[in-house]
């Protein structure tokens, strides 16, 4: 889960890291008042949980409170990068001397945490790093290892920092790394980390992502971030399945993520476009199955459904009943092709056949795809 910028900055503040003075505004009037309080010259920044806001027009510099109100009025309610803007951050402008990059992430392949630092921060960090990878400092740490201030002090000293700036950077780096461990973060970036004219350091942005699987023990972050703007994805969460909306017309339901991706590939090979990715996981009940199908067809573009299942702990009988029930309650009948193999598959086929649903009695998903192609063409 990615925190909104202002939530991420609250985390930074709690670590003693300085951020620009700011207010969250829900209305243009609040933005006006905030700008007045902050001395007039402010940044107006949309609060959505994704990067590239600046390039998408979601960040504006206002010279007066009136301008702040005007920008806020334009941005609030607008849709930027798929998200409807509900709040803007009104932030005092700062005089920046130099922009740096600092971040921590996880190297999944090696199971390590990686501290990263670059003298060239700001919007073009990715370009800089891909052109000159040696400019990105990387420090790797294993399980439970910390990054004490003195370690990062020696490392950054070797890159030319000293005195106040060196101590400040080391404190921020060490605090950030400690928070990364403590809060189960999966990504944490300050970009840009600004050096002001007096040599002090200010975090001008904050990208903080928490490992979803660890939210149960990081209760302070519950109800933070922002829900996905897609209603179907929200509904999928409630049902307990994973749903990703795609552009095509063929609904997909698979009992595993790999199988789901495979279905998309196979459909594409036959010139069919998937309308979604949907993974049920292993715990299929009749209710879950019916709800999942209902979810898939609630996308009105869907004109046929491909279902590929393996029966494990839960028997395929449950799945079959769920599919039958879903079909019966469909407003408009569309072709459904089911491949179902495993626990009680013969009984499941019986039910599906009786319900008039097309089935493939082998494990071959590609045969189900071919049958589906016949049905829709």
């Amino acid at each position, binding site marked *: 889960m990615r925190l909104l910028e202002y939530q991420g900055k609250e985390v930074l503040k709690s670590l003693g890291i300085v951020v620009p003075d700011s207010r969250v505004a829900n209305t243009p009037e609040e933005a006006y008042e905030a700008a007045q309080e902050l001395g007039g010259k402010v940044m107006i920044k949309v609060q959505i949980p994704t990067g590239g806001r600046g390039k998408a027009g979601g960040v504006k510099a206002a010279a007066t409170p009136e301008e702040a109100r005007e920008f806020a009025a334009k941005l609030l309610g607008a849709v930027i990068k798929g998200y409807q803007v509900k709040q803007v951050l009104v932030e005092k402008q700062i005089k920046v001397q130099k922009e740096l990059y600092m971040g921590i992430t*996880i190297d*999944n*392949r090696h*199971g*390590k*945490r990686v501290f990263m630092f670059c003298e060239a921060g700001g919007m073009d960090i*990715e370009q800089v790093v891909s052109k000159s990878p040696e400019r990105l400092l990387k420090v790797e740490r*294993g*399980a*439970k290892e910390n990054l004490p201030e003195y370690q990062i002090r020696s490392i950054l000293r070797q890159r030319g920092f000293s005195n106040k700036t060196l101590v400040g950077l080391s404190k921020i780096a060490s605090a950030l790394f400690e928070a990364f*461990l403590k809060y*189960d973060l*999966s990504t944490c970036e300050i970009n840009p980390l600004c050096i002001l004219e007096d040599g002090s350091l200010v975090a001008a942005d904050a990208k903080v992502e928490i*490992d*979803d*699987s*660890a939210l*149960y*023990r990081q209760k302070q972050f519950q109800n933070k971030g922002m829900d996905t703007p897609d209603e179907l994805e929200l509904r999928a969460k409630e049902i307990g399945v*994973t749903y*990703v909306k*795609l552009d095509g017309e063929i609904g997909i339901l*698979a*009992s*595993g*993520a*790999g*199988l*789901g*991706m*495979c279905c*998309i*590939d*196979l*459909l*594409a*090979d036959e010139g069919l476009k*998937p309308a979604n*990715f949907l*993974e049920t*996981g*292993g715990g299929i009940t009749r209710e879950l199955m019916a709800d999942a199908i209902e979810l898939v067809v609630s996308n009105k573009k869907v004109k046929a459904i491909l279902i*590929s299942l*393996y*029966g*494990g*702990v839960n028997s395929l009988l449950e799945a079959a009943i769920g599919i039958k029930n879903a079909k019966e309650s469909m407003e408009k009948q569309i072709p459904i092709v089911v491949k179902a*193999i*495993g*626990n009680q598959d013969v009984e499941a086929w019986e039910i599906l056949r009786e319900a008039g649903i097309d089935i493939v009695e*082998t*494990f*071959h*998903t*590609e045969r189900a795809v071919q049958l589906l192609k016949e049905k829709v063409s």
Partner: protein
Amino acid sequence: MSILLTENTKAIIQGITGKVGSAQAKWMLEYGTKLVAGVTPGRKGQNVYGLPVYDDVLETVEKHGANATVIFAPAAYTKSAVFEALEAGIKLVIVVPEHVPVADAIEMREAAKAKGAYLLGPTTPGVISPGIGKLGIMPGNMFKQGRIGVISRSGTLSYEAAGYLNDAGMGESTVVGIGADPVIGMDLPDLLQLFDEDEGTDAVVIVGEIGGTAEEEAAPFIQKMKKPVVAYIAGRMSPPGKRMGHAGAIIQGGAGTAESKNEALTKVGAAVAFNLLDVPVLLKKAL
């Protein structure tokens, strides 16, 4: 012959008295797996399908010579169960649970490597050596004894891959679910080496998916292998930036695409299948 799960494996189940643990114990036993005991703290003296239950893993090692474990624990307790197994000297740990915090997975991975133990998962369907046994939740009847080693990130796709192999009359020596999480216990080269050294395996199939760089980083090792490798990467038509179910299955910042994986694998001489259907064809060519 087989890897990881062999004739010498004596396995236990941690969390055996739970609903999933006991159901899976039954299926593993029915498949002929040599299970020797189960563990649920506080339940010593109970009996699950003939398996004695203990309070701690160490006692199953002392009394039954247990050397492998399948873990069915809530995600929040998985790390502790894994550490208990590793410290008791268990050398094969199957971590079935999903939604284990990545921080815990990092610790588990590091501890297993330090102990020289094999750790599959988190989010693994487990391992099956057809004809010998199965540890995990793979449906036994999807597999057939044979001489092809299979390594898969996805459970369902490993069943599907085995289906095509069986159709082609080939069968599997061992099918390994490596785990679908971002951070997992074993690296591809570890498993490729085991298969390369296994007398019962003639060739290896890698069933991968988009996301991460595991396949790319395994390429140099594949080049050194004696046995042929055939790979299939699921998700070539999936859009970037979308997490396709598995936490690890996401193309981010241009990395982890099927193309980059296929290119890296082709370069080192692995045969890359466009579809699972092609896997047996490519295998026959390579053998």
